[in-house]
């Protein structure tokens, strides 16, 4: 379909919304075009450019953030749906003065090269470790009825939604394993 008739029925008012949600523990209130994804709201409206746009279609994982504690791909979430909800981005992972253990482990293990997928890897790993704590199984868990042990194969499977073209995968796995063991 093409533009003319559609645009006549549109008005700014009806195509935008006021939204209030928490980002890294701070309440943010925005008037947003309904089409704005969480990723674009973070990057273009809130100046939080940590979450990255790698594919914009949920296929690479670079935009991963935590939404009410769950890891999600922020490029597939319209921000207008988020009223009252809570988002944590990579900018919210560290303490005021020091890196979180996961971030420190990523640096120590050289779990990245170009760094573009890294914020997504970190948020994904953080969400994934919480999933493991909740006893969630994965596709490689042998016995679905008992909590999975976090082997390297489990970490690889659970982190498979975050592509890294530099291929720091084994170092990402090592950093996560170390963090999980220390928990």
């Amino acid at each position, binding site marked *: 379909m093409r533009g003319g008739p559609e645009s006549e029925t549109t008005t700014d008012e*009806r195509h935008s919304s006021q939204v209030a949600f928490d980002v890294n523990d701070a309440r943010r209130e925005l008037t947003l075009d*309904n089409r704005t994804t969480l990723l674009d709201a973070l990057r273009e409206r809130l100046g939080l450019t940590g979450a990255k746009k790698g594919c914009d279609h*949920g296929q690479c994982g670079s935009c991963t953030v935590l939404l009410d504690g*769950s*890891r999600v*791909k922020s490029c597939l979430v319209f921000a207008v749906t988020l009223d009252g909800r809570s988002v944590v981005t990579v900018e919210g992972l560290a303490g005021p003065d020091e890196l979180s253990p996961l971030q420190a482990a990523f640096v120590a293990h050289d779990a990245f090269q170009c760094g573009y997928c890294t914020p997504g890897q970190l948020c994904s790993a953080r969400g994934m470790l919480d999933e493991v704590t909740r006893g969630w199984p994965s596709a490689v868990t042998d016995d679905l*009825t008992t909590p999975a042990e976090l082997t390297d194969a489990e970490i690889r499977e659970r982190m498979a939604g975050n592509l890294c073209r530099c291929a720091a995968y084994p170092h990402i796995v090592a950093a996560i394993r170390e963090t999980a063991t220390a928990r």
Partner: protein
Amino acid sequence: MRPFRYHRPAGVAEAVAVLAAEPQAAYLAGGTNLVDLMKLGVQRPDLLVDVTRLPLDAVEELPGGGLRIGATVRNSDLAAHPVVRRDYPVLARALLAAASGQLRNLATTGGNLLQRTRCVYFQDTGKACNKREPGSGCAARHGQNRDLAVLDWSDLCVATHPSDLAVALAALDAVVEVHEPDGPRDVPLAALHRSPGEHPERETTLARGALITAVRLPHLPAARRSAYLKVRDRASFAFAVGSVAAVLDLDGDVVRDVRLAYGAVAHRPWRAYRAEEELRGRPFSPQLAARAADAELAEARPLRHNGFKLPLTRAITVRALTELAEGTPAP
């Protein structure tokens, strides 16, 4: 992406009424497929009715057995549900084999069933696709069709249904609860999706405005011995090039009951009734399983690039059933 209005309905009836009144409206649930297609320009709704906050997010055990899964239960929550893991491993496995952890945290039960084909021609508005634009032709029929259908396709469309969950639900004889403008009704999963035929743009048997509210699993003790086997082109997330959902109930070595469904072979999740018939009442053997798959695939018509799906589907049928028979299903 076309500008759209956004509405959060207070209840199911209101949601259905709004959608029925607005010809260009669409439901928004997890968004993992719809947002993607809106960005591609494949879907261009002018109103999104957000159903994620409707009270449809419970998993309840039914009196007398069985499970009722709310339509907005997230794929990851469902896969992790203790009853699903214990009583319906085929379902948990299918969910866990699909997409990535981040997508499973968004994607819903109802939305998963209604996802659109991943045929690359459907997704590219610069290419001919009868499903996207009726009458424009099917570029896939004589194009790159390695990932597409071998069964039940028509000259107008050779797309496959991409869902893993739907394949498991087909095998489990799940029932889909929908709310239509005329009121609620039950639709057997096996009757939810259509063959492409003359109208590949019509993908389900649901009325315009219908909202899936829940999926019901029957009481099926045999499903404790069930498996989902998915083959894909890499170990990391990818859509299936072949998959099988299987429930096997043996009496000694005789097949008392069996449920089989295939993914990645047709426009809908493919319940393999003929194969089941071949198996039922006979002593199980891998050879029998192979014969059963052959019976199911006898009418298959592979396209230029996907002939391998026949031996593949046969192989995973044999493996899934044999492992179930031996009591050693592996992930």
